[in-house]
């Protein structure tokens, strides 16, 4: 079954869109496109779902409450390019885990 990957930002319309696009093309390049179901939302709507473990993988471009911090990959490098490879590899590891 495909894993769910939730991408969150503050509004759900700007930076999560960019991050989702980057992740999507990376996963396709890696031949993992069909292994992942990509979702996008705003953090305020997702805190409890993330806390409850409803998504297999979570990437955020905004600050998240400390209660869910260890469940979330910081996606900001996907926007600045600095450290983006590391983030993508971490996502890949979790997809393949």
């Amino acid at each position: 079954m495909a894993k769910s990957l939730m991408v969150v930002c503050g509004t759900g319309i700007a930076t999560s869109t960019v991050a989702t696009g980057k992740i999507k093309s990376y996963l396709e390049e890696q031949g993992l496109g069909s292994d992942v179901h990509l979702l996008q939302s705003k953090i305020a709507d997702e805190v409890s779902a993330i806390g409850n473990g409803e998504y297999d993988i979570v990437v955020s471009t905004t600050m998240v409450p400390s209660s869910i911090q260890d469940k979330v990959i910081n996606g900001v490098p996907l926007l600045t390019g600095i450290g983006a490879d590391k983030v993508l590899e971490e996502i890949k590891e979790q997809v393949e885990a």
Partner: protein
Amino acid sequence: MFDEKVVLLDINAKDSTEALSLVADKLIEKKIVKPSYKSAVIEREKTFPTGLNAPSCGIAIPHTDAIHVNKAQIAIARLANPVKFLQMGDGADVQAKLIFMLALKEPHAQLETLQKLMALIQNDKAVSELLSVKDSENVIKVLTENNL
């Protein structure tokens, strides 16, 4: 998304709130956003900061919910002196010299523009041009050359 040419060069602001306010006022004046955009974008910046330490300079990409927006557009402002924003994601200090204020209508329609904007901020040459050009026509020219 720059067709209204909202460009503010070397504005003086004592902090990020004043900078946001000056740029938002310009968008309101041009009726690109609703008057409610201003307080919404300022409030959102406090909750969800939008600074980014790009490779060659600090920038910020403030934005807020689509309900405050009439027309999709990006306003660009260059600050006379950098002001402190916080980095999205980790809250690190960002001394922002450039602000790209996003007036966004819907998520996926603007993906390409947002991707190009992120490519632009990673491009040292384009950023240094934006920091040095003398007038708004040349700002638009740099943006156009980078397919924005």
